[in-house]
């Protein structure tokens, strides 16, 4: 059975969804979701350990050898992202029970779980597949599921946010299909490894460069690459708490992964980075995201939207690695996929608890007044995760920034170093706003923590922020393997 783990990784959550719809029971839905999430984490860990010991391997679906059939390919990078996604899922699933019960009508709850399973399956499917078109199909599964997850938010703004996300997401996915189509027309194959192989023989580069542009913009829309991020703040702000936490921690990260995969393992980076101003473009956009989006966050009143803007900025850190294109910077970027996932996951999970107890549909910064007294543990967790967002030593966020700065220095890009420090200062400003209100301003209300299951999940994720700050054997070691894998270029 062990050799079939790549298929099971995706098929388990995929099968859970129709079972949930068939059973129509909220209790079963929650049990199935939790079981599947944990199973996915175990499978991802097993796959990662197999890659670490034996190198990359592939799995032929339907026993048709690639490129005729569809191939699943597990390598250092995809194994790392699989672990990151399913790790988040394993925290969100137990949390979901109380959160969903509080935010949705009873006869919709089981569907919410089904959507969550589908979204998870889609994201894992994108990560593990070695086929460009299969990637599109799973991209659509996860996207459609996430549109519904967002639209199920309690305020009517959620509907419009979901609509806008759907419009931009679909345009993005279609752009991606156009890009893949062009690549297919010049190579005749859809398998990623085969594509890389055959692209080297292509003489007329015009279609290839166009494909690159379309894929970049298409996936850029999905990952909220500055300035294609307009859908993100509202989508995160109005989605149900559990959906925000899950999507913020995983969806954009998986899209970044797709970009990394195409840039470094399909296209020839040497030709790419010299022929087009890719490096400069990515550096400029990333720095712009880091500074502009963070500044917007400082002046944002809605707490969830504040952290959503911060996400746009943090995505800038991740794409920075593509621009710097060296071992330490890419290590930082890839590690940030996990580090930021854990950090933002913790923040949105804890905020979900606050929202549950306050009962209000929207949460302004002012409404957090006295949180340190009302919900001391929650507030403490928020502070920890906030510190990680800033990048204080001893937290996961610091590890990322350290590697990014080393990478920038190696590249001689001092202005990027300055930008990273500046952006961190801005992060201090918006995190301090929350801390100040929570601890220094008096608020009303009795002392009442979030339900145990929700609080535990949130605090555990906040704990991971610290854990990954001190013990870097999982995040940095995995990311560094992935980075050297990427820098080896198309094999």
């Amino acid at each position, binding site marked *: 059975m062990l050799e079939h783990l790549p298929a099971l990784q995706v098929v388990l959550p*995929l099968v859970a969804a*129709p079972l949930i719809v068939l059973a129509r029971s909220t209790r079963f839905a929650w049990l199935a979701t939790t079981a599947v999430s944990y199973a996915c984490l175990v499978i991802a860990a097993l796959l990662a350990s197999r890659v670490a010991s034996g190198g990359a391997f592939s799995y032929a*679906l*339907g026993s048709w050898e690639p490129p005729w059939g569809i191939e699943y390919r597990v390598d250092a990078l995809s194994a790392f992202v699989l672990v990151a996604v399913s790790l988040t899922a394993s925290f969100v699933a137990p949390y979901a029970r109380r959160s969903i019960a509080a935010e949705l009508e009873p006869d*919709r709850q089981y569907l919410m779980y089904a959507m969550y399973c589908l979204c998870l399956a889609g994201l894992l499917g994108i990560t593990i597949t070695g086929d460009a078109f299969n990637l599109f199909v799973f991209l659509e599964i996860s996207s459609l599921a996430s549109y519904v997850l967002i639209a*199920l938010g309690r305020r009517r703004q959620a509907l419009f946010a979901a609509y806008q996300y759907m419009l931009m997401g679909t345009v993005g996915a279609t752009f991606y299909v156009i890009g893949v189509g062009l690549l297919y027309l010049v190579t005749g194959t859809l398998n990623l490894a085969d594509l890389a192989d055959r692209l080297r023989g292509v003489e007329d580069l015009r279609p290839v460069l166009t494909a690159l*542009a379309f894929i970049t913009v298409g996936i850029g829309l999905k990952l909220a690459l500055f300035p294609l991020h307009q859908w993100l703040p509202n989508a995160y702000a109005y989605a149900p708490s559990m959906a925000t936490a899950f999507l913020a921690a995983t969806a954009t990260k998986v899209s970044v992964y797709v970009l990394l995969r195409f840039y470094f393992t399909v296209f020839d980076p040497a030709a790419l980075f010299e022929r087009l101003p890719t490096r400069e473009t990515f550096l400029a956009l990333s720095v712009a995201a880091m500074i502009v989006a963070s500044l917007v966050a400082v002046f944002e009143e809605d707490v969830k939207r504040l952290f959503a803007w911060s996400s746009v900025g943090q995505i800038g850190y991740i794409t920075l690695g593509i621009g710097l294109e060296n071992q330490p910077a890419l290590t930082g970027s890839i590690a940030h996929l996990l580090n930021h996932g854990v950090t933002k996951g913790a923040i949105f999970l804890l905020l979900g608890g606050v929202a549950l107890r306050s009962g209000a549909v929207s949460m302004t910064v002012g409404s957090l007044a006295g949180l340190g007294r009302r919900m001391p543990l929650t507030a403490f967790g928020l502070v920890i995760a906030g510190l990680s967002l800033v990048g204080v030593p001893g937290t996961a966020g610091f590890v990322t920034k350290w590697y990014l700065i080393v990478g920038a220095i190696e590249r001689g890009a001092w202005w990027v170093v300055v930008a990273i420090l500046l952006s961190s200062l801005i992060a201090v400003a918006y995190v301090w706003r929350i801390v100040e209100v929570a601890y220094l301003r008096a608020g009303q209300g009795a002392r009442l923590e979030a339900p145990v299951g929700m609080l535990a999940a949130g605090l555990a994720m906040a704990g991971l922020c610290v854990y990954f700050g001190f013990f870097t054997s999982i995040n940095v070691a995995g990311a560094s393997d992935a980075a050297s894998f990427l820098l080896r270029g198309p094999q």
Partner: protein
Amino acid sequence: MAVTVVAMVLQRNLFSVVVLFSIYSFLMATVLVALDAVDVAMTEAAVGAGVSTVLLLGALHLTGGTEAKRLERPLLPLVLSIAVGAVLAYGSLGLPGFSDPLAPIHTHVAPRYLNEGPRETGVPNIVSAVLASYRGYDTLGETVVVFTAGAGVIALLRRRRNKK
């Protein structure tokens, strides 16, 4: 086809736009038949002209008919769309010409389906063979996409009995 599309852009009565969309889908299906894509043509006719039109009309019934006039800054979107088109045009110049038997798509991967498909799967309709077997996993994904949409619509449009 081009005429129907232009008309769709200009027409503000949404009902007419839906009808035009239906005609457009039929034309598209015809073109697809001419290009030997019979399976795709059949689907496009059933989906574009059938399902989509019914869905659009159903939704139109719920949302109401005409579009408010609003074309204050039509230039920027036009420039943007044409810019995207220009990029694609640039790329398409380097593509192999129409019906070039030596194009990579005809020499790589596909020949195996055509030559070995019937023997390996026992199905002479290669499209079916590739769809259900060689790339069966894509089809599983596609079925799940349909399922996701179905379940999603249930989640969004279920009538709330207890609220009234």
